């Protein structure tokens, strides 16, 4: 080491070492909406994961035998002045004398799982279709993308309902779980979004020098897609995926609301609301609490997705 470079090295040592991942996380956390989304999401995830510890009753436990537990009974919180003589139900009881609080927390497990799994299905298949279309070009591209156009030509929920009823009625062992059918249907309907994002990335990247270099080095088509192109397409996929989870949660709740998707007595927010929609005038708490949980989860993913987009879009920051 020469004498001249010593001060430079010292300067460099002063700066904490950073990594791309840490930089990115830093950028994301600097976004107010992303922070708000993460906090909300944290609360919901904790509630869902710890539901077993936090709730006094099971999600499907009927409390008709508990003294003072009334069917459709409103919330009773001792801290807020509910007389000590009555048993405490933070969010009240539902039409089958089940504890709404327990059901709302457990419902988070279903919604979060469904959201993540459906987006997972859609991203994997969509990315595959998008990369094949973008990389192959020509008639392959044309056929695949026209098929995507057809999927996009339906109003989403209508197609989801149609697919879910079709899957439900199929007499095959893999289609015997209605919640799984709903997830599958929502996943399929979401595919075109990811296919389009991926195809656009592939088209913009495949002619770049580093891809040419990789090809010159003898890398296979699949290797180029996986190692060179996919990493560069990750940002829009992550943004779309985060926003997509919000959509998926909404759609599965809507499906369960109309009687597809989750099967009673499963604690799922949409079906909890759907089951009592004729009693909303006498027992509004049965709509308010699951509705609040549902809206908060959707809001969390929407805020997080917006935040990530603002943080990672180079046109908007730095």
């Amino acid at each position: 080491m020469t004498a001249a470079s010593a001060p430079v090295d010292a300067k460099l040592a002063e700066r904490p070492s950073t990594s791309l991942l840490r930089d990115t996380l830093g950028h994301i956390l600097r976004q107010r909406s992303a922070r708000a989304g993460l906090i909300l999401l944290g609360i919901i995830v904790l509630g869902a994961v710890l539901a077993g510890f936090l709730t006094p009753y099971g999600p499907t436990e009927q409390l008709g035998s508990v003294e003072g537990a009334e069917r459709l009974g409103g919330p009773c919180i001792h801290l807020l002045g509910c007389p000590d003589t009555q048993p405490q139900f933070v969010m009240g009881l539902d039409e089958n004398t089940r504890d709404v609080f327990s059901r709302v927390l457990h419902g988070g497990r279903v919604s979060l799982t469904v959201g993540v799994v459906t987006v997972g299905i859609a991203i994997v298949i969509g990315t595959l279709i998008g990369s094949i279309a973008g990389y192959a070009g020509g008639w392959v591209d044309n056929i695949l993308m026209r098929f995507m156009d057809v999927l996009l030509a339906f109003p989403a929920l209508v197609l989801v309902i149609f697919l879910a009823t079709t899957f439900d009625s199929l007499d095959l062992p893999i289609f015997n779980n209605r919640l799984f059918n709903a997830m599958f249907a929502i996943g399929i309907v979401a595919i075109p979004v990811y296919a389009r994002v991926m195809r656009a990335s592939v088209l913009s990247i495949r002619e770049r020098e580093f891809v040419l270099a990789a090809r010159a080095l003898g890398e296979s088509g699949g290797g180029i897609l996986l190692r060179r192109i996919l990493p560069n397409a990750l940002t829009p996929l992550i943004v779309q995926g985060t926003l997509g989870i919000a959509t998926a949660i909404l759609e599965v709740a809507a499906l369960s609301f109309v009687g597809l998707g989750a099967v009673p007595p499963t604690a799922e927010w949409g079906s909890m609301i759907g089951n009592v929609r004729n009693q909303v005038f006498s027992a509004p708490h049965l709509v308010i609490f699951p509705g609040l949980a549902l809206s908060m989860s959707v809001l969390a993913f929407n805020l997080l997705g917006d935040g990530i987009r603002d943080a990672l879009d180079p046109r908007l920051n730095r």
Partner: protein
Amino acid sequence: MLPFIGRRLLLSIPVLFGIIFMVFALTRLLPGDPCIAALQERASPDVCAIFNARFGLDEPIPVQFVAYLGQLATGNLGDSIQQGRPVAEIMLERLPVTLELTIFALAFASVAGIALGRLSAIRRNSAVDVGTMVIANLGVSIPVFVLGLLLAYLFAVVLRGSPISLPPSGLLSAGVPHDSLAEVWQMEESTGFVRAILDFLSNMTIFSSLISFQWEPFLDGLKHMILPMVALGTIPMAIIARMTRSSMLDVLGLDYVRTARAKGASERIVNSRHAFRNALLPVVTVIGLSLGALLSGAVLTETIFLLPGVGQTLVESIRSRDYIVIQNLTLVTALTYVVINLIVDVSYAYLDPRIRLR
């Protein structure tokens, strides 16, 4: 303009075929053959052979597909198993209700969304701006059916008896007379296509009472429309508000806006004449895109507010597993959506001449 419309029409033909083929193929996946589904316990092998021959179900699939296209073209959509009448008849009755609801919700979303977004952009970073954007973020996240039920509870139960109480269900109050257009215009002898059009329009309660000057059902219908319209329109309204705000802010930062200010144009003129008009184009795109969400949301809104539209029929058919109705409603909704998209695209080309050249 005409070449653009022609090209756009040609491009939508493959999509239309794709939609029809997909619905056809998925329906053929359904278990049990159609014979058993239609005839139930009367279906014996002999009867089914005749049934299949009569409906062409013993032909190869491609032939069946062509036959199905022919059926569609003649408006023969099959019979509802549950209701025992032609699906086409059900559509004619139900689609207008959905269309009217969608149009009202779209109008609400556009007017309120643009107004809020514009206000927000002009008073950037003020309390009004922050408040509007918080509302917009919350609005995007509340599911249609939750908002609908809560609105119904608020306006029909909490506010019952107050002057702003609103009816939570149905198209009209019981006892409000509403004559069909054929009756009002004394065209009851008309048949076929003319009659179909008249009946279709008559089922748009508010619109038909307006054009036939029946004020009582008109006002009552409007009153019944407010809650469903707000419930269905809130998500698109929030999206439109956010888009209007960001588009307005983009435009307000441009040089020609500064020039206009330098010329001494008042802030109001700059905002309305210079900035607002040019900020509208991306907003129109978003309005067009929100139609899919509206048609989807209509399914839920109609279920909550008991409006006899396509969506409510769809949900009823899910309960009774009336596949023929589900299949055809899906098809007709998708076709409606394609047609609406076509109209939206053509109107962009009208608004922005650059699009015609692409």
